[in-house]
Protein backbone atom coordinates (compact mmCIF):
# COMPACT_ATOMS: atom_id res chain seq x y z
CA UNK A 1 0.00 0.00 0.00
CA UNK A 2 1.90 3.00 -1.28
CA UNK A 3 0.27 5.47 1.11
CA UNK A 4 1.28 3.45 4.14
CA UNK A 5 4.79 3.16 2.76
CA UNK A 6 4.87 6.93 2.32
CA UNK A 7 3.59 7.38 5.86
CA UNK A 8 6.16 4.96 7.21
CA UNK A 9 8.90 6.85 5.42
CA UNK A 10 7.56 10.23 6.59
CA UNK A 11 7.75 9.11 10.22
CA UNK A 12 11.25 7.68 9.81
CA UNK A 13 12.39 10.85 8.08
CA UNK A 14 10.72 13.11 10.63
CA UNK A 15 8.63 14.87 7.99
CA UNK A 16 5.33 15.77 9.66
CA UNK A 17 3.84 17.44 6.59
CA UNK A 18 4.39 14.36 4.45
CA UNK A 19 2.97 12.26 7.31
CA UNK A 20 -0.21 14.33 7.34
CA UNK A 21 -0.59 14.09 3.58
CA UNK A 22 -0.02 10.34 3.52
CA UNK A 23 -2.46 9.83 6.41
CA UNK A 24 -5.24 11.74 4.64
CA UNK A 25 -4.54 9.79 1.45
CA UNK A 26 -4.63 6.45 3.25
CA UNK A 27 -7.94 7.30 4.95
CA UNK A 28 -9.41 8.47 1.64
CA UNK A 29 -8.37 5.13 0.17
CA UNK A 30 -10.27 3.34 2.92
CA UNK A 31 -7.38 2.08 4.98
CA UNK A 32 -8.83 1.27 8.44
CA UNK A 33 -7.55 3.65 11.14
CA UNK A 34 -6.34 0.73 13.27
CA UNK A 35 -4.25 -0.54 10.36
CA UNK A 36 -2.65 2.88 10.05
CA UNK A 37 -1.60 2.64 13.69
CA UNK A 38 -0.62 -1.00 14.07
CA UNK A 39 0.46 -1.61 10.48
CA UNK A 40 2.43 1.56 9.98
CA UNK A 41 2.97 3.96 12.88
CA UNK A 42 3.93 1.29 15.40
CA UNK A 43 6.55 -0.40 13.20
CA UNK A 44 7.84 3.00 12.10
CA UNK A 45 8.40 4.13 15.70
CA UNK A 46 9.92 0.74 16.56
CA UNK A 47 12.43 1.33 13.77
CA UNK A 48 13.11 4.86 15.07
CA UNK A 49 13.78 3.38 18.50
CA UNK A 50 16.16 0.84 17.00
CA UNK A 51 18.10 3.56 15.21
CA UNK A 52 18.41 5.49 18.46
CA UNK A 53 19.82 2.39 20.17
CA UNK A 54 22.43 2.07 17.40
CA UNK A 55 23.30 5.73 17.71
CA UNK A 56 22.19 6.44 14.16
CA UNK A 57 19.47 8.69 15.51
CA UNK A 58 19.91 11.12 18.35
CA UNK A 59 17.40 13.05 20.42
CA UNK A 60 16.62 15.62 17.67
CA UNK A 61 15.83 12.88 15.12
CA UNK A 62 13.65 11.05 17.65
CA UNK A 63 11.75 14.23 18.38
CA UNK A 64 11.12 14.89 14.70
CA UNK A 65 9.89 11.35 14.08
CA UNK A 66 7.65 11.60 17.12
CA UNK A 67 6.31 14.89 15.76
CA UNK A 68 5.44 13.24 12.44
CA UNK A 69 3.83 10.28 14.21
CA UNK A 70 1.79 12.57 16.46
CA UNK A 71 0.62 14.59 13.47
CA UNK A 72 -0.67 11.40 11.91
CA UNK A 73 -2.24 10.24 15.21
CA UNK A 74 -4.06 13.54 15.58
CA UNK A 75 -5.94 12.68 12.39
CA UNK A 76 -6.42 9.00 13.18
CA UNK A 77 -7.38 9.24 16.84
CA UNK A 78 -10.92 10.59 16.43
CA UNK A 79 -11.58 7.94 13.78
CA UNK A 80 -10.33 5.21 16.11
CA UNK A 81 -12.56 6.46 18.89
CA UNK A 82 -15.54 6.65 16.55
CA UNK A 83 -14.95 3.10 15.39
CA UNK A 84 -15.01 1.98 19.02
CA UNK A 85 -11.47 0.67 18.92
CA UNK A 86 -10.04 0.35 22.40
CA UNK A 87 -6.52 1.49 23.11
CA UNK A 88 -3.97 -1.19 23.97
CA UNK A 89 -3.88 0.33 27.44
CA UNK A 90 -4.23 3.59 29.34
CA UNK A 91 -1.01 4.91 30.78
CA UNK A 92 -0.40 7.83 33.09
CA UNK A 93 3.16 9.06 32.62
CA UNK A 94 5.20 11.73 34.33
CA UNK A 95 8.54 12.75 35.75
CA UNK A 96 8.49 12.37 39.53
CA UNK A 97 8.32 15.10 42.15
CA UNK A 98 11.35 17.38 42.30
CA UNK A 99 12.59 16.44 38.84
CA UNK A 100 12.09 18.74 35.87
CA UNK A 101 13.74 16.63 33.16
CA UNK A 102 11.21 15.61 30.57
CA UNK A 103 12.70 15.03 27.13
CA UNK A 104 13.18 11.31 27.69
CA UNK A 105 9.76 11.05 29.29
CA UNK A 106 8.25 12.92 26.31
CA UNK A 107 9.90 10.48 23.91
CA UNK A 108 8.52 7.50 25.81
CA UNK A 109 5.08 9.12 25.87
CA UNK A 110 5.26 9.55 22.09
CA UNK A 111 6.42 5.99 21.58
CA UNK A 112 3.60 4.69 23.77
CA UNK A 113 1.07 6.71 21.82
CA UNK A 114 2.51 5.38 18.59
CA UNK A 115 2.28 1.96 20.17
CA UNK A 116 -1.50 2.24 20.52
CA UNK A 117 -1.74 3.41 24.12
CA UNK A 118 -3.93 6.21 25.40
CA UNK A 119 -1.37 8.41 27.11
CA UNK A 120 -2.10 10.83 29.95
CA UNK A 121 1.06 12.91 30.27
CA UNK A 122 1.24 14.80 33.57
CA UNK A 123 4.48 16.59 32.74
CA UNK A 124 7.33 16.95 35.21
CA UNK A 125 7.63 17.47 38.97
CA UNK A 126 4.55 15.33 39.57
CA UNK A 127 3.57 14.59 43.15
CA UNK A 128 2.31 11.09 44.06
CA UNK A 129 -1.23 12.41 44.64
CA UNK A 130 -1.43 13.68 41.06
CA UNK A 131 -0.43 10.29 39.68
CA UNK A 132 -3.14 8.68 41.81
CA UNK A 133 -5.76 11.25 40.84
CA UNK A 134 -5.09 10.87 37.13
CA UNK A 135 -4.88 7.08 37.21
CA UNK A 136 -8.22 6.90 39.02
CA UNK A 137 -10.03 9.52 36.97
CA UNK A 138 -8.86 8.13 33.64
CA UNK A 139 -9.12 4.42 34.53
CA UNK A 140 -5.48 3.87 33.73
CA UNK A 141 -4.04 0.39 33.99
CA UNK A 142 -0.43 1.48 33.76
CA UNK A 143 1.66 4.18 35.44
CA UNK A 144 5.07 5.13 34.06
CA UNK A 145 7.51 7.04 36.26
CA UNK A 146 10.61 8.86 35.04
CA UNK A 147 13.54 10.37 36.97
CA UNK A 148 16.84 11.67 35.76
CA UNK A 149 18.60 12.38 39.05
CA UNK A 150 19.66 9.99 41.80
CA UNK A 151 18.41 12.75 44.17
CA UNK A 152 14.85 12.45 42.88
CA UNK A 153 14.69 8.67 42.48
CA UNK A 154 13.32 8.30 46.03
CA UNK A 155 10.14 10.00 44.74
CA UNK A 156 9.57 6.84 42.70
CA UNK A 157 9.37 4.85 45.91
CA UNK A 158 7.08 7.36 47.60
CA UNK A 159 4.79 7.28 44.56
CA UNK A 160 4.55 3.48 44.63
CA UNK A 161 4.02 3.57 48.40
CA UNK A 162 1.26 6.15 47.92
CA UNK A 163 -0.59 3.82 45.54
CA UNK A 164 -0.19 1.09 48.14
CA UNK A 165 -1.49 3.31 50.94
CA UNK A 166 -4.48 4.33 48.85
CA UNK A 167 -5.38 0.69 48.27
CA UNK A 168 -4.79 1.09 44.54
CA UNK A 169 -1.55 -0.81 44.04
CA UNK A 170 -3.33 -3.88 42.62
CA UNK A 171 -5.26 -1.79 40.09
CA UNK A 172 -2.27 -0.57 38.12
CA UNK A 173 1.05 -1.82 36.87
CA UNK A 174 3.90 0.59 37.58
CA UNK A 175 6.99 0.85 35.39
CA UNK A 176 10.05 3.03 35.95
CA UNK A 177 12.82 4.45 33.80
CA UNK A 178 15.36 7.22 33.38
CA UNK A 179 19.13 7.33 33.05
CA UNK A 180 20.19 6.51 36.65
CA UNK A 181 17.39 3.99 37.24
CA UNK A 182 18.28 0.30 37.24
CA UNK A 183 16.47 -3.05 37.31
CA UNK A 184 17.88 -3.52 40.78
CA UNK A 185 16.32 -0.28 41.96
CA UNK A 186 13.02 -1.12 40.29
CA UNK A 187 12.97 -4.46 42.14
CA UNK A 188 13.92 -2.82 45.45
CA UNK A 189 10.99 -0.38 45.33
CA UNK A 190 8.42 -2.88 44.11
CA UNK A 191 7.95 -1.61 40.57
CA UNK A 192 6.46 -4.05 38.06
CA UNK A 193 9.00 -3.30 35.40
CA UNK A 194 11.98 -1.31 34.24
CA UNK A 195 13.21 -0.44 30.78
CA UNK A 196 16.36 1.33 29.74
CA UNK A 197 15.20 2.84 26.47
CA UNK A 198 12.16 4.42 24.85
CA UNK A 199 11.85 1.52 22.42
CA UNK A 200 11.95 -1.20 25.04
CA UNK A 201 9.55 0.83 27.20
CA UNK A 202 6.79 0.16 24.67
CA UNK A 203 7.46 -3.58 24.63
CA UNK A 204 7.44 -3.61 28.43
CA UNK A 205 4.23 -1.60 28.57
CA UNK A 206 2.50 -4.02 26.21
CA UNK A 207 3.65 -6.95 28.32
CA UNK A 208 2.48 -5.35 31.56
CA UNK A 209 -1.04 -4.52 30.37
CA UNK A 210 -1.48 -7.93 28.81
CA UNK A 211 -0.67 -9.71 32.04
Amino acid at each position, binding site marked *: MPDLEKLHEAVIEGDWKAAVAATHAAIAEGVPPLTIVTGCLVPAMDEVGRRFECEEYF*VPEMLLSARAMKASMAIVRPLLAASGAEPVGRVVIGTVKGDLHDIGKNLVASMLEGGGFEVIDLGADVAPERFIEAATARHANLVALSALLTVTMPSMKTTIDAFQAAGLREKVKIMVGGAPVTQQYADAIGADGYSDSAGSAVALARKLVAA
Partner: protein
Amino acid sequence: MRLKLISCEVLFREMCHACAHSPHQVDLEFLPKGLHDLGGKPMAAKIQEAVDRTPEGAYEAILLGYGLCGNGLDGLQARHTPLVLPRAHDCIALLMGSHERYQAYFESNPGTYYRSTGWLERGKGLQQLTHNTMGFDESLEAMIGKYGEDNGRYLFEEMTRYRAQYRKLTFIETGLEADGKFVAEAAGEAEERGWSFERLPGDLAWLGRLVDGQWTDAEFVVAAPGQRIAASYDARVVKVRT
Protein backbone atom coordinates in the same frame (compact mmCIF):
# COMPACT_ATOMS: atom_id res chain seq x y z
CA MET B 1 49.72 10.14 54.85
CA ARG B 2 50.42 10.29 51.16
CA LEU B 3 47.09 10.52 49.39
CA LYS B 4 46.02 10.68 45.76
CA LEU B 5 42.97 12.81 44.93
CA ILE B 6 41.17 12.19 41.64
CA SER B 7 38.60 14.91 41.26
CA CYS B 8 36.22 16.42 38.78
CA GLU B 9 37.64 19.70 37.50
CA VAL B 10 34.43 21.46 38.47
CA LEU B 11 35.82 21.40 42.02
CA PHE B 12 39.23 22.72 40.97
CA ARG B 13 39.52 25.79 43.17
CA GLU B 14 37.88 24.12 46.17
CA MET B 15 40.10 21.01 45.97
CA CYS B 16 43.31 22.99 45.53
CA HIS B 17 42.37 25.05 48.56
CA ALA B 18 41.58 21.99 50.65
CA CYS B 19 44.80 20.21 49.65
CA ALA B 20 46.92 23.26 50.40
CA HIS B 21 45.57 23.20 53.96
CA SER B 22 45.74 19.45 54.52
CA PRO B 23 48.16 18.00 57.06
CA HIS B 24 48.73 15.23 54.51
CA GLN B 25 50.62 15.26 51.23
CA VAL B 26 48.00 15.07 48.49
CA ASP B 27 48.73 14.52 44.79
CA LEU B 28 45.99 15.98 42.65
CA GLU B 29 44.59 14.83 39.35
CA PHE B 30 41.59 16.47 37.69
CA LEU B 31 39.34 14.79 35.15
CA PRO B 32 37.25 16.74 32.64
CA LYS B 33 33.94 18.30 33.52
CA GLY B 34 30.86 16.66 32.10
CA LEU B 35 31.75 12.96 32.39
CA HIS B 36 28.26 12.41 33.79
CA ASP B 37 26.90 13.22 30.33
CA LEU B 38 28.43 9.98 29.10
CA GLY B 39 26.09 8.00 31.31
CA GLY B 40 26.80 5.99 34.46
CA LYS B 41 28.74 3.03 33.07
CA PRO B 42 30.98 4.96 30.65
CA MET B 43 31.80 7.52 33.34
CA ALA B 44 32.66 4.77 35.82
CA ALA B 45 34.97 3.25 33.20
CA LYS B 46 36.79 6.55 32.77
CA ILE B 47 37.29 7.01 36.50
CA GLN B 48 38.38 3.39 36.84
CA GLU B 49 41.06 4.09 34.24
CA ALA B 50 42.37 6.95 36.36
CA VAL B 51 42.27 4.81 39.50
CA ASP B 52 44.11 2.01 37.71
CA ARG B 53 46.90 4.36 36.64
CA THR B 54 47.77 4.88 40.29
CA PRO B 55 50.96 2.98 41.16
CA GLU B 56 50.69 0.36 43.86
CA GLY B 57 52.19 1.27 47.21
CA ALA B 58 52.54 4.96 46.39
CA TYR B 59 49.54 6.09 48.42
CA GLU B 60 47.63 5.07 51.49
CA ALA B 61 44.32 5.91 49.89
CA ILE B 62 42.81 7.30 46.69
CA LEU B 63 40.32 10.07 47.38
CA LEU B 64 37.51 10.75 44.92
CA GLY B 65 36.35 14.34 44.40
CA TYR B 66 32.92 13.23 43.23
CA GLY B 67 29.55 12.15 44.46
CA LEU B 68 27.52 9.27 43.02
CA CYS B 69 27.12 11.55 39.97
CA GLY B 70 24.26 9.78 38.25
CA ASN B 71 25.82 6.36 38.95
CA GLY B 72 29.12 7.47 37.43
CA LEU B 73 30.89 6.10 40.49
CA ASP B 74 28.76 2.96 40.73
CA GLY B 75 30.83 -0.17 40.26
CA LEU B 76 34.19 1.53 40.78
CA GLN B 77 36.63 -0.97 42.25
CA ALA B 78 39.48 -0.43 44.66
CA ARG B 79 42.44 -2.35 43.27
CA HIS B 80 45.50 -2.31 45.56
CA THR B 81 44.68 0.98 47.30
CA PRO B 82 41.52 1.86 49.27
CA LEU B 83 39.09 4.31 47.71
CA VAL B 84 37.36 7.05 49.71
CA LEU B 85 34.17 8.68 48.38
CA PRO B 86 31.92 11.23 50.07
CA ARG B 87 28.31 10.08 50.56
CA ALA B 88 27.02 12.71 48.17
CA HIS B 89 24.69 12.53 45.19
CA ASP B 90 26.82 15.07 43.32
CA CYS B 91 29.18 18.03 43.63
CA ILE B 92 26.37 20.38 44.62
CA ALA B 93 25.98 18.44 47.86
CA LEU B 94 29.74 18.70 48.38
CA LEU B 95 29.72 22.47 47.85
CA MET B 96 26.81 22.84 50.26
CA GLY B 97 28.69 20.92 52.90
CA SER B 98 26.28 18.11 53.69
CA HIS B 99 23.86 15.64 52.18
CA GLU B 100 21.10 16.87 54.52
CA ARG B 101 21.56 20.52 53.59
CA TYR B 102 21.46 19.65 49.89
CA GLN B 103 18.37 17.45 50.28
CA ALA B 104 16.51 20.16 52.23
CA TYR B 105 17.51 22.95 49.85
CA PHE B 106 16.73 20.84 46.76
CA GLU B 107 13.27 19.98 48.03
CA SER B 108 12.37 23.53 49.00
CA ASN B 109 13.76 25.01 45.83
CA PRO B 110 12.45 22.97 42.91
CA GLY B 111 13.46 24.18 39.51
CA THR B 112 16.86 25.48 40.58
CA TYR B 113 19.97 25.57 38.40
CA TYR B 114 23.20 25.53 40.38
CA ARG B 115 26.40 27.38 39.58
CA SER B 116 29.78 27.67 41.28
CA THR B 117 33.18 28.94 40.13
CA GLY B 118 33.94 25.60 38.47
CA TRP B 119 30.53 25.35 36.83
CA LEU B 120 31.09 28.78 35.30
CA GLU B 121 34.71 28.72 34.24
CA ARG B 122 35.57 25.07 33.61
CA GLY B 123 34.85 23.13 30.45
CA LYS B 124 34.20 26.09 28.20
CA GLY B 125 34.54 25.06 24.60
CA LEU B 126 34.07 21.47 25.72
CA GLN B 127 33.83 19.10 22.82
CA GLN B 128 30.45 17.42 22.72
CA LEU B 129 31.19 14.40 24.86
CA THR B 130 28.17 12.42 23.92
CA HIS B 131 25.19 12.33 21.64
CA ASN B 132 22.97 12.37 24.69
CA THR B 133 23.40 16.10 25.05
CA MET B 134 23.61 16.97 21.38
CA GLY B 135 21.36 19.80 20.48
CA PHE B 136 20.69 21.09 23.98
CA ASP B 137 23.06 24.01 23.77
CA GLU B 138 22.67 24.87 20.12
CA SER B 139 21.30 28.22 19.06
CA LEU B 140 18.11 28.66 17.10
CA GLU B 141 20.17 29.64 14.06
CA ALA B 142 22.25 26.46 14.32
CA MET B 143 19.17 24.26 14.59
CA ILE B 144 17.54 25.96 11.59
CA GLY B 145 20.78 25.56 9.68
CA LYS B 146 20.82 21.83 10.38
CA TYR B 147 17.12 20.94 10.17
CA GLY B 148 15.45 23.68 8.19
CA GLU B 149 13.23 26.52 9.35
CA ASP B 150 10.19 24.52 10.46
CA ASN B 151 11.86 21.51 12.08
CA GLY B 152 14.74 23.62 13.39
CA ARG B 153 12.43 25.99 15.21
CA TYR B 154 10.38 23.09 16.57
CA LEU B 155 13.48 21.33 17.90
CA PHE B 156 14.86 24.49 19.46
CA GLU B 157 11.58 25.05 21.30
CA GLU B 158 11.33 21.43 22.44
CA MET B 159 14.91 21.23 23.64
CA THR B 160 14.99 24.56 25.44
CA ARG B 161 11.58 24.34 27.05
CA TYR B 162 13.27 23.04 30.20
CA ARG B 163 14.56 26.58 30.71
CA ALA B 164 11.00 27.75 31.31
CA GLN B 165 10.56 24.99 33.87
CA TYR B 166 13.55 26.17 35.85
CA ARG B 167 12.81 29.24 37.92
CA LYS B 168 15.97 30.03 39.80
CA LEU B 169 19.72 30.11 39.56
CA THR B 170 21.63 29.61 42.80
CA PHE B 171 25.28 30.57 42.89
CA ILE B 172 27.09 28.65 45.59
CA GLU B 173 29.65 31.03 47.00
CA THR B 174 32.61 29.41 48.72
CA GLY B 175 34.65 32.51 49.58
CA LEU B 176 37.35 31.37 47.18
CA GLU B 177 36.13 33.68 44.45
CA ALA B 178 39.04 35.99 43.63
CA ASP B 179 36.77 38.78 42.47
CA GLY B 180 33.17 39.57 41.63
CA LYS B 181 33.16 38.22 38.08
CA PHE B 182 31.71 34.82 39.03
CA VAL B 183 28.71 36.24 40.86
CA ALA B 184 28.20 38.76 38.08
CA GLU B 185 28.25 36.07 35.41
CA ALA B 186 25.83 33.88 37.36
CA ALA B 187 23.48 36.81 37.98
CA GLY B 188 23.67 37.70 34.29
CA GLU B 189 22.78 34.16 33.27
CA ALA B 190 19.77 34.19 35.60
CA GLU B 191 18.58 37.47 34.17
CA GLU B 192 19.02 36.26 30.59
CA ARG B 193 16.88 33.22 31.29
CA GLY B 194 14.28 35.09 33.31
CA TRP B 195 15.08 33.17 36.49
CA SER B 196 15.38 34.51 40.02
CA PHE B 197 18.87 34.59 41.52
CA GLU B 198 20.27 33.60 44.89
CA ARG B 199 23.77 33.73 46.36
CA LEU B 200 24.06 30.78 48.70
CA PRO B 201 27.04 30.49 51.05
CA GLY B 202 28.78 27.18 50.42
CA ASP B 203 30.55 25.12 53.07
CA LEU B 204 33.93 23.58 52.31
CA ALA B 205 34.25 21.62 55.54
CA TRP B 206 33.14 18.30 54.01
CA LEU B 207 35.75 18.55 51.26
CA GLY B 208 38.24 19.51 53.97
CA ARG B 209 37.49 16.32 55.89
CA LEU B 210 38.02 14.30 52.71
CA VAL B 211 41.58 15.49 52.24
CA ASP B 212 42.34 15.72 55.97
CA GLY B 213 41.70 12.02 56.35
CA GLN B 214 38.69 12.43 58.67
CA TRP B 215 36.63 9.71 57.06
CA THR B 216 33.72 9.09 59.40
CA ASP B 217 31.34 6.39 58.23
CA ALA B 218 28.47 8.87 58.31
CA GLU B 219 30.06 11.04 55.63
CA PHE B 220 32.32 8.74 53.59
CA VAL B 221 32.35 5.29 52.12
CA VAL B 222 35.71 3.49 52.09
CA ALA B 223 36.25 0.64 49.66
CA ALA B 224 39.01 -1.75 50.69
CA PRO B 225 41.07 -3.44 47.95
CA GLY B 226 38.79 -5.70 45.93
CA GLN B 227 35.59 -3.98 47.05
CA ARG B 228 33.38 -1.95 44.74
CA ILE B 229 31.42 1.22 45.35
CA ALA B 230 27.69 0.87 44.67
CA ALA B 231 24.59 3.04 44.82
CA SER B 232 22.72 2.15 48.00
CA TYR B 233 19.34 3.70 47.09
CA ASP B 234 18.91 5.12 50.58
CA ALA B 235 19.92 8.17 52.62
CA ARG B 236 23.53 6.93 52.80
CA VAL B 237 23.72 7.27 48.99
CA VAL B 238 26.55 4.77 48.50
CA LYS B 239 27.81 1.52 49.97
CA VAL B 240 30.46 -1.08 49.24
CA ARG B 241 29.97 -4.52 47.80
CA THR B 242 32.37 -7.33 47.06
